[in-house]
């Protein structure tokens, strides 16, 4: 029985596909391109111009995408910096430094002025002291008259009462002295 079955089953080996169908099927399959993966591996093994253009196309797409992302991020950063309500002028470091420099310069100028005035003042004091040592200045004849050895207290009182312009004259003398110092 087993032998009969196996014999019958082996008879099924004679089943064959239609020759026309088999030929057409083969031609169709072989005319189709292989899968993308196989094509990709072939691209490396077969270097040609088409592959170069394919690669260039891919790289150009990559570069354009990169620049788009870069410009979008740059734009966002600029808008944020320029129009943001949080961007206060006082918080800007550059403007703060410039402002500080201006203030520093004005302080320098003021100090120099003070120094100059101080020096001028010292010069004036020195000149006055020198003049007073070398030659005593008398405001006028009236004044000189009271500064003599023989002058008494009464004479001075009389002088002060009888010389109404004494204050004006002494002012004129002081002015003269200051002019000299200035010279």
């Amino acid at each position, binding site marked *: 029985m087993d032998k009969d079955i196996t014999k019958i089953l082996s008879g099924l080996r004679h089943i064959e596909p239609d020759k026309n169908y088999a030929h057409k099927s083969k031609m169709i399959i*072989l005319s189709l391109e292989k899968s993308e993966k196989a094509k990709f591996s072939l691209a490396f093994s077969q270097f040609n111009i088409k592959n170069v253009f394919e690669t260039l196309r891919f790289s150009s797409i990559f570069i354009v995408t990169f620049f788009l992302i870069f410009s979008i991020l740059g734009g966002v950063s600029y808008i944020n910096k320029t129009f943001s309500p949080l961007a206060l002028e006082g918080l800007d470091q550059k403007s703060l430094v410039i402002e500080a420099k201006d203030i520093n310069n004005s302080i320098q100028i003021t100090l120099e002025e003070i120094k100059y005035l101080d020096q001028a003042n010292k010069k004036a004091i020195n000149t006055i002291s020198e003049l007073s040592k070398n030659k005593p200045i008398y405001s006028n004849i009236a004044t000189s008259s009271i500064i003599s050895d023989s002058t008494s207290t009464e004479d001075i009182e009389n002088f002060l009462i009888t010389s109404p312009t004494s204050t004006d004259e002494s002012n004129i003398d002081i002015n003269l002295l200051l002019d000299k110092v200035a010279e």
Partner: protein
Amino acid sequence: MLDGDEKSIIKSAIDGEASAFGSLYDKYHSKIYRFIYLKVSHREEAEDLAHQVFLNAWQNISKYKFQGLPFSSWLYQIARNQVIDHYRTKKVTVNLEIIEEIFISDYSVDKEVGSILELETARKAILKLNQEQQDIIIMRFVEDLSPKEISQTLGKPESTIRVLQHRAIQNLKKILKNEST
């Protein structure tokens, strides 16, 4: 196992040489077609599925690895999956009443009407087996593959294949006995 010539042909096919794959097609197409035809009920379906098997093989030939697995086993695996998908997606059920027709043209040699009837009876009986037993009967007794080759194709131990083969033959006998009575 692969002989040297077949190995070089397969390598050429993997490299994209269409003529090399054409050689493999010529060598294995009949076997694969037969395997599918005995598992489905219609010649047209068998033709479509066999075409699909070789198309898939050509498109995925780079995935084939030389690891002791014969190229035919790889093709049988694709064919098995194709038939399973065919039944699963199209919800096809084998209508044995339709298979009553005898396609004498399906047989390559002229046979007596009596023997053709025997073959058709055997074909119908195979269709009544489950998928696994069908695979073993076709591979072992129709295609004359060794238990080792079948175990490689189905991914099961050789001892399991022998047990399954014995069970499949017993079932087939029962079916044929029932058919004759």
